[in-house]
């Protein structure tokens, strides 16, 4: 409004004032970004340092040489490779199972018409509130009796079950957004339930499935409680339990390899996040009910 009447020097002064007023804001944002990013930079630098550099050099020092020795020793002596393999072997089947079972259940509860589907959906929802601690002891007993301890099956079964409530709930929400006419038209055209499920419902909620899968992946991969409870030997340890015991292995802390181990774990998730960050954020925010 004032721009019409004000002369050019005035306008320039205005811009300067505005820039000055935004300065505290920009400092705050820079501070915020440093707080988030600096620990990670420090971690990456640490993964290239040698033991003596940790003990004698100040924390801001740059590694003397850029060698991947720490990474090699984390994998070879630290057994990081074995731990990561275990995590993959536990997470991939769990993820597949939870998506297949959860999607099928959500379809039966949301698209199909029958009495009692409301209460059963609520029953699944109730599972979101339960603290996992309530389940550990009975599950431990069950797995012990079934002679499943000493395998990765306890992890796969527990992850699948713990992931089901959120998966069913979110997939039901995605299915609700599809116009019912599509399913009704398909039945009139003579399609059976399984054709509708496989050729219409699944393709239509493909993005939703992907988002839910991503969220569950992070829950499973980052889990400590379940894997700590059900992996009783070094051979079965997942990457999180393995990292936790990284310090104890040599008596004294071997900083370099430990930083390398942390870095591998962090950079792995970072790469997934860099490519899919919008979907990760949206997914985790909608999965917040998990608490």
């Amino acid at each position: 409004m004032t721009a019409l009447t004000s002369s050019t020097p005035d306008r320039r002064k205005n811009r300067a004032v505005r820039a000055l007023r935004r300065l505290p804001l920009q400092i705050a944002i820079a501070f915020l970004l440093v707080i988030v990013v600096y620990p990670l930079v420090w971690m990456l630098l640490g993964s290239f340092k040698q033991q003596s550099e940790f003990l004698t050099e100040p924390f801001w020092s740059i590694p003397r040489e850029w060698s991947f020795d720490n990474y090699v020793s984390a994998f070879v002596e630290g057994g990081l490779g074995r731990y990561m393999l275990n995590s993959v072997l536990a997470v991939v089947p769990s993820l597949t199972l939870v998506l297949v079972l959860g999607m099928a259940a959500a379809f039966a509860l949301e698209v199909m018409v029958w009495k009692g589907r409301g209460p059963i959906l609520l029953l699944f929802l109730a599972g979101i509130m339960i603290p996992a601690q309530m389940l550990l002891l009975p599950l431990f007993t069950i797995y012990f009796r079934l002679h499943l301890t000493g395998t990765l099956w306890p992890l796969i079964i527990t992850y699948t079950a713990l992931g089901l409530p959120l998966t069913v709930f979110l997939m039901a929400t995605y299915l609700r957004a599809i116009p019912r006419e599509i399913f009704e038209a398909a039945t009139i055209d003579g399609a059976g339930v399984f054709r509708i499920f496989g050729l219409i419902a699944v393709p239509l909620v493909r993005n939703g499935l992907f988002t839910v899968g991503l969220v569950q992946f992070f829950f499973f991969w980052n889990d400590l409680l379940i894997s700590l409870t059900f992996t009783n030997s070094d051979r079965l340890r997942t990457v999180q339990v393995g990292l936790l015991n990284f310090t104890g292995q040599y008596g004294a802390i071997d900083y370099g390899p430990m930083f390398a181990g942390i870095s591998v774990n962090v950079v792995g998730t970072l790469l997934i996040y860099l490519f899919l960050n919008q979907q990760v954020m949206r997914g985790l925010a909608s999965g917040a009910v998990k608490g």
Partner: protein
Amino acid sequence: MQKVLGDKRAILILLGPALLVYTAVMLVPIFWSAGYTLFDGNLVRGFEFVGIDNYVEFFQDKTALEAVFFSLRFSVVETVLQVAVGYALALLYVFGLRRASSLVRTVVFFPVILPTVAVALLFRRFFEAAPTTGPVNSFLEILHIPGIDWLGQADSSFWVIVLMELWRSMGFYAVLLYAGLLDIPDDIIESARLDGASGWRLVRSIIVPLSLPVLLSAIIFSINGTLKVFDTVVALTNGGPGTATTPLTLYMFRTSFGYGEFGYGSTVALMLAILCLLVTIFIFRSSRRDVTKG
């Protein structure tokens, strides 16, 4: 049509497996675990019926009550910080950065998806006093303040845990509350601006009241999440020094798998579940009262 989508056999095939797994691994164990609370023993020793002895023991067990107190204190402090910082960030995204917020949001969210164990090990080094001096203590030394053995004392350990949880989760609460702020219609804010409200007053009188529902759900998520804190504590302090930073979750884990007390461990787990439920109900109730008042 009804016949196709109401096919009982198809429902059974689609829903059956999920319901079976869910029932066997989640529903049955809840009752099983509740049953364990009346027994003493474990898989090797066998079980002996003891009635309500476990509950009596719980309320006389000093360590257990300390764990309850720690859980509650941590949960309250952390919830206040998570929601306050998250809200401040959300306001910053909406009003400070406007359309340019995408990059900042993405970066600040990043710690949320990092493995907790990795972050905790990193923070342990960050606050280390010996044998190496971590960045925090080095920084203090530059300011000529003597370094602190952060994880060697109960009080400072508590705050390191609080800080790490905040670092890890503030981006999450920021995005959650940011979505809530975006839902506020632009014309309401615009008309408040025309009426002369700006800055702090706009936030306090218009934005906060309108985002109360999403704030409330953020508080409930936060309370439930922080009462269940486990990974962070195990990897950062392992409950120490002594049992000074042991939440109920870790105490349950210790009694069950460290000492093999399945009955007592189940009692602690049940108490944790009840605590989560009570706190959630309490918040729901108190928020409803406030709404009718205002």
